[in-house]
């Protein structure tokens, strides 16, 4: 009986040791990326669309993608405050999959974004890790 319980316990522990990764809308993913350029989302004041190349996403890999960032984004402690993100800076933070950048038109044109930045910090402009 003890052996049975022990086996069950081992199985449960093994199962729990697998990381549960989900990249559905709303899931938080850690990222780091280089700000290639930034544009204002003119139909949603204060919001910007940032093109990252490269963009490293935890559990996903290295891609090139655009993400939305707003002035209410959380900043890492002791990191630089750079808003809107400026070209040639590196950023580190957290994002959620999915986002929208609204551009002025009638009705506003919705530019879909790969993600939305929820937490960030930045390097000095022009900083190169290479």
């Amino acid at each position: 009986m003890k052996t049975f319980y022990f086996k069950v316990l081992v199985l449960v522990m093994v199962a729990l040791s697998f990381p549960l990764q989900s990249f559905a809308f709303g899931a938080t993913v850690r990222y780091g990326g280089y700000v290639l350029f930034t544009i204002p989302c003119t139909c949603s004041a204060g919001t910007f669309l940032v093109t990252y190349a490269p963009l490293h996403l935890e559990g996903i890999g290295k891609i090139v993608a655009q993400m939305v960032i707003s002035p209410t984004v959380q900043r890492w402690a002791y990191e630089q405050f750079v808003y809107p993100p400026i070209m040639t800076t590196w950023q580190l933070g957290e994002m959620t999959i999915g986002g929208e950048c609204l551009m002025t038109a009638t009705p506003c044109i919705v530019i879909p974004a790969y993600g939305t930045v929820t937490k960030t910090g930045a390097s000095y402009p022009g900083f190169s890790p290479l």
Partner: protein
Amino acid sequence: MNFRQHLLIFSVIIFCIPVTNLSAAITRTLSIGSRGADVKELQVILNKDITTKISSTGPGSPGNETEYFGFLTAKAVVVFQEKYKKEILTPAGLTLGTGTVGSFTRAKLNSLFNVPQTVTTNNLVPNNTVPTNSTPKASAPAFTYTSISYPILYSVPATVKRGSTVVIYGANFSLKGNTIIFGTEKIGNISSPDQQKIQFTVPTTLQNGTYNVSVQNDIQLTSQKSSTITVTDIQPITPLIFDANPKIVSVSPGSDLRVTVTGSGFSLTDNTIQSSFGSIANVKATSESELTFSLEDFAQFDQVRVNPYAKGASVPLIFGIANSGGSTPKTIQILVQF
């Protein structure tokens, strides 16, 4: 059971008692629709200052704070943000309050009202002008709503047909009781459930012509910058995109950086490309079904193409087209291969 066992049990019990703060810090972004104990905390804090009081009576008033972040709370947050503009709005590049409790607003609230600090970024925490055990600052001179919450118009159709339904996009609209001022005519009692767009029917009594249009909210504040709308008998043709070519634009010295778009409803004289690379205004179409633009017309393109990090990157270019007939309901994507 000996003394040591008693001591052990006592210690375990002590450690199990949760340590609670009477005043919890606000640690997340709060906006209209948010619910929770931190919303109630926010209302309590705002009610401590007469200028940012949620309400004098009923839900939200002092002693009747609720856990729901509604329109009145948002209004009070706007007042708070305007009051501490230098520390909250200016660093975020804003001039008017947003009503959303983001990091700057949280930092100011928590610092002013001696709530345990959780925002640790140096830039966010105002300097120590307020001793940690001080009482809240004295209230500022009486606040009047006339300095805030003016409706803002972001997107107004250029041409509309009499009797058609029109949507205006903006900010600071009231939930109910908005008025559209159409030249000398007024269309009243219009609701805006999300406070960001207003839908109304163009009066059939209006003559053809161009009118200044503004929006007034329920506290009698009128958008300060009016826009113009041309009223006609002809239904404007909404532009549509069917295809764009090439699907991959290769950026190399001497390469063709033009993109040809096929669709319908393009203006022969004035289209705007709105895209993930920015905007290009005054794009002429070769016909109502075809137009061409160049990547070089995006303001930042020349700067981006020489950036070594762009080399080898395939960047999505997602775009739509706007003109006097409206805007494309769907965008299209191609790739720019640097």
